[in-house]
């Protein structure tokens, strides 16, 4: 038997031994509603969240990756801090309608209402982490899948403007606490950005100064 044949048999038997790798089941409408409610309830009881993250930007055409790392802070209701530490220091604070960016020694203040890109990014990030994106039927069509130890929510934009930038967003929720573990944002270009959250600290006190805009 040639090498290709052997590789195929090996891959197939591996799938049989690890059924979870091959099984992604779409949930029925009733089950999907229950999962959405559980995610929404978990988000409601989350007052604050702190987590490390690894962001991987996949450049589809040239098959390259750009990897960034940092810490993420969220505090109810609309306070968000993204602190990138690698490959360089870069800070974004979303404080209600204001955005503050610190890029090395350069500081920038942006009003969210006047900047469409940041408004969309803010809505997506907050909505993803707080689970509200799943309920946003005006902008997304949502399907939920059962995938091993996670629920996978696939969000496809229905809004034409949003479609021009984002083709789909996939959120992976932990089955035990319904918090988001991973976000994959696929762009119209074919590129995608994967953000994986780790070392999550839920409802620990985060001082307001973390979100203060100078």
């Amino acid at each position, binding site marked *: 038997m040639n090498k290709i044949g052997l590789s195929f048999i090996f891959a197939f038997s591996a799938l049989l031994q690890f059924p979870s790798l091959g099984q992604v089941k779409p949930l029925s409408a009733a089950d999907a509603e229950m999962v959405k409610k559980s995610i929404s309830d978990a988000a409601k009881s989350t007052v604050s969240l702190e987590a490390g993250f690894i962001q991987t930007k996949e450049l589809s055409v040239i098959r390259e990756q750009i990897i960034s790392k940092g810490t993420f802070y969220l505090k109810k209701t609309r306070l968000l801090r993204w602190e990138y530490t690698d490959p360089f220091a870069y800070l974004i604070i979303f404080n209600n309608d204001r955005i503050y960016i610190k*890029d090395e020694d350069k500081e920038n203040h942006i009003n969210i209402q006047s900047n469409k890109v940041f408004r969309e990014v803010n809505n997506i990030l907050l909505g993803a982490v707080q689970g509200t994106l799943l309920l946003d039927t005006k902008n997304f069509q949502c399907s939920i899948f059962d995938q091993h130890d996670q629920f996978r929510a696939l969000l496809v934009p229905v809004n034409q403007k949003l479609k021009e930038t984002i083709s789909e967003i996939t959120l992976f929720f932990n089955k035990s606490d319904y918090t988001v573990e991973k976000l994959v*944002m696929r*762009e119209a*270009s074919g*590129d995608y*950005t994967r*953000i994986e959250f780790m070392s999550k600290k839920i409802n620990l006190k985060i001082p307001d100064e973390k979100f203060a805009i100078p």
Partner: protein
Amino acid sequence: MKSLRFLSFILLLFAVSCSPVKTSRLTEVKYDERNPEWESPFSKDFDKAMFKVTLDVKGKHLSGIALIKKTSDTSFHFSFANEIGMTYFDFELWKDNYRSDYVFSPLNKRAFLKILQHDFRLLLFTGSFNGKPTHYRDPLTLDDIYFYSGAHLFAYLGKENRKLTRLAGWSNLVDAALIGLEYNQGDFPSGISIINPRIGMLLELNLLGR
């Protein structure tokens, strides 16, 4: 990073004061029969490089990470995305061709993209193969400056290290383009600034890794 800003500032002063290079301020080196050999730092054994990027154009400020990758002997790919990962530009460039894979819609302006293509061609596909140059010397810095009339290109070579430190040319018939290159160590630039004074564009690339 601060020195790259200084370099950009110097280039900008230089650019707004004149056409790309005012040869009346330079000393022509006559009877120089040597044809200096130099080439873009992106030629030869270049594979790919990642940069921290800021782009200022017409009052808009964009920042993020860019990757320049050599995709064949005759082509480069340029991808530029913001820090959160959303793509601004994604294009493939040949010496006489261009393919856009994606451009963020607010930046998708034909004239601007043309200028960007020309500027990157000036940076990526340049070298002493442009013919026999006229040799000048800057009386202040003693840098050697070579003017290739056929390519409308000025190339500055450092007095001591003979590294390419500046390129001046035209993006099109009316738009001057100025490229500054600075080196911390090695032969590959740690910082590159591209200035297009007429459209008020300043693109700064700071090397993150290769």
